[in-house]
């Protein structure tokens, strides 16, 4: 059910600007909605992050992924089991930039015998990396549209991205990779029974949105051309707070922009917040140094305990009988 609901929701999100982005409607889809979307994204994102940040971390609970630091003669694993801030930074950097934990992924196979085998399973890691980095490159490439002059790194990135030198305009690998990776992430959800079982509408919806976003972008660049000068005029207008709608931008642009607006509006309310959340994860962002440095729980409170005196009162006779020392004879 989740698949179809999400699918038709995204189809509807394509149809709405298709119908609506005409005449005055262009002001709505070209100016009002993008502004609202960005505003929602910024406020929503900050709200969520602040909410996490102000929730206390009562205990230091890193998941240790290697040997701890103990003796000088035992080799510690300073990254997977960090004992210092430097180690934590390295661990987090590997997690954020290289998806370290996902790289560990294995797949079990239960054969007759019984015999359990553990196979390497890096496809999710590969696809996730491809997806996120392609998205990043595509995002940076878009700087060309809202920065004048175009920063040098955008040009540099484009020349790398377009290295295959096919077609006119030159094919950008990142867009294709983004689309393929998103398709893969979708297909595995459908094809792997266990994944299909755990998937919710909230898992399909953003994938379809991104697939729609990438598709409309690719269509716009290679097939249904729009006047890129006008598009840049519009975007520069938006970012400089002098919004205006130039004439003659095809509807495909408004579809692209609307899908993006929906995506960033949806972002703070959804699982997409993992982007901010990963930095707050107490099992990853804390050193395993509890025994050397005391961690403070801000809400630690006294509890009722069974004191030694009460214990001795319960058992004094028996203790004396076997010669155990007591406080009160």
């Amino acid at each position, binding site marked *: 059910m989740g698949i179809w609901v999400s699918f038709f929701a995204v189809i509807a999100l394509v149809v709405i600007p298709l119908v609506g982005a005409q005449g005055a409607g262009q002001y709505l889809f070209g100016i009002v909605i993008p502004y609202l979307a960005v505003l929602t994204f910024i406020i929503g994102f900050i709200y969520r992050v602040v909410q996490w940040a102000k*929730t206390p971390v009562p205990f230091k609970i890193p998941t240790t992924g290697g040997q701890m630091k103990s003796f000088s003669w035992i080799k510690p694993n300073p990254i997977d089991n960090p004992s210092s801030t430097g180690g934590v930074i390295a661990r987090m950097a590997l997690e954020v930039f290289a998806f370290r934990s996902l790289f560990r992924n294995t797949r079990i196979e239960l054969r007759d015998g019984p015999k359990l085998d553990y196979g390497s399973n890096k496809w999710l890691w590969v696809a996730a990396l491809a997806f996120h980095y392609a998205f990043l490159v595509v995002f940076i490439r878009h700087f060309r549209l809202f920065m004048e002059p175009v920063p040098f790194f955008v040009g540099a990135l484009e020349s790398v991205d377009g290295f295959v030198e096919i077609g006119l305009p030159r094919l950008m690998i990142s867009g294709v990779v983004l689309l393929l990776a998103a398709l893969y992430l979708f297909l595995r959800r459908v094809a792997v029974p266990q994944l299909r079982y755990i998937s919710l509408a909230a898992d399909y919806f953003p994938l379809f949105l991104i697939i729609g976003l990438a598709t409309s972008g690719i269509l716009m660049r290679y097939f249904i051309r729009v006047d890129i000068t006008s598009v840049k005029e519009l975007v520069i207008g938006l970012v400089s707070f002098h919004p205006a709608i130039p004439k003659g931008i095809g509807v495909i642009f408004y579809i692209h922009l609307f899908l993006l607006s929906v995506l960033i509006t949806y972002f703070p309310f959804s699982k997409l917040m993992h982007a901010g959340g990963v930095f707050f994860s107490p099992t990853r962002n804390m050193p395993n140094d509890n025994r050397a440095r005391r961690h403070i729980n801000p809400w630690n409170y006294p509890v009722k305990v069974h004191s030694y005196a009460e214990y001795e009162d319960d058992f004094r006779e028996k203790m004396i009988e076997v010669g155990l020392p007591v406080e009160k004879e």
Partner: protein
Amino acid sequence: MAKVAPPEELAKVDHTPPKKGWMDMPVELKEGRWCYGSKPKDHEVTGLPNPRAWSPGDEDWKLPENWQEIFLEGMRERLDKFRSFRLFMDICVRCGACADKCHFFIGSGDPKNMPVLRAELLRSVYRGEFTTAGKVLGKLAGGRKLTYDVFKELFYYFFQCTECRRCSLYCPYGIDTAEITIIGRELLNLLGCNIDWIAGPVANCYRTGNHLGIQPHAYHSMIEFFCEEIEEITGILPEPSLNRKGAEILFITPSGDIFADPGTFTAMGYIMLFHYLEGLGLDITWSTYASEGGNFGSFTSHEMMKRLNSKMYAEAKRLGVKYIIGGECGHMWRVCNQYMDTMTGPADFLEVPKSPITGTVFENAKSHKMLHICEFTADLIKHGKLNLDPSRNDQYKVTFHDSCNPSRGMGFLDEPRYIINNVCNSFFDMPINTIREQTFCCGGGSGLNTDEIMDLRMRGGLPRANAVKYVHEKHGVNLLSCICAIDRATLPPMMEYWVPDVEVSGVHELVANALILEGETKRTMNLRAEEFPWVEEEEVEEAAAEVILEAADEGVEEAAEEVADEEAAGEAEGEE
């Protein structure tokens, strides 16, 4: 106790989920997978809510009138107190990397045992009761209301998680199901829904100082009994002290090792090691008040964990020791490493641990002021302070089971291996995907080592057992050593079921087997009072040597033949 199917049958696990969505699958509490309910008398000892006679098998769990309100209020409170909980409710993308990492999913095929889905059981309630989208869109936004059935489902599955944290290792965001289970159980406990196997030990520990309810005089006689056993084996009678003020070090170990085999051999190992070290300047005492290293309170709530854990520092203070040494135990060390100093510290009345024998200062424990016995022993061995004869463990081909908590809640991996390699001659690690940080649970951690769920335990134990089987077949491994008292209780039946012929031991049992005490008699048996397999052979050889001498003297050929016969007979017996 529910009957467990034979291994061949149990191993036929279907991992394909059902057609129907999980929210539409009504909860079915299967025999052999749920634990008995907590008893009212145990609630009363510690003041746990809602004492009443109940069973999870009953239709009516006798919850208070306003149970939903209590549960949801408790959830709100914890969302505000634990960043981990709020974050883990918010950011899961359901990528599925954790799905086949759980021993219970591998062994049972129940999709709700996939860590992601176990967490979703509670996450759906979070979305349905706490987020706008979930309240408005319901199932479409992955939200559910907290119904009676949902509540039962939460109980059923939070007591099918051993808090081993294996899933959290593979999660790209470090989402830790143990953390969710810990808080989930805390919420269940608000309504008095605990299991007997946890609430009982908690009540015992609160009152008598240990989970098994061993009273001080009985504890005393058990230790005395061990000493007599040791005398039997070594000819030396150690005299450990209990509750002695002014000792330099307090020793605390799980009571399971005092109570039942094979843990008792580890307890004897400690006594022998301490006796050996007394001559070198060790001044150590045991305690009957703090006679529990483990902490079943941590399987109940954070508060109960603290109420039980407090005894360690309190007793150290009362006895005036300088620091504490803790025995081999899994979840004990999760609590000691990640919670104790924060909850019950600062231990400013203690000193930074310093080995009285080697002079090593343990900077890594300078705030907590407590050492793992394996750290202590490894340091002794490194400094050559122990007189060891590893050949006395030659009947064993050893492998090592990394317990979940020291592995993923501490990173205590190489210290025990270092010790084993110094006290045994043949050691073989299991395959890499099943050891160290990737280790598998024994199937009975976090208070699930109870017999009524033997079916679940054998299923959960499958991955661990399978790895043991691999080294058993490849290298002839016959001993599974570990540094956890729960393991020593759960692994023997698990081995008997999946890999017969493999025994279970603690590390310090092996240490004591190899340890040469000053003035000991010639050892002919191990700590289990089993004669060394080579003893008989040696006797035969000695006898044979005598006969040969006689034969040489008399020059009779027949005597030589007799020797040959006797040797053959001896060998045959040895093989048996």
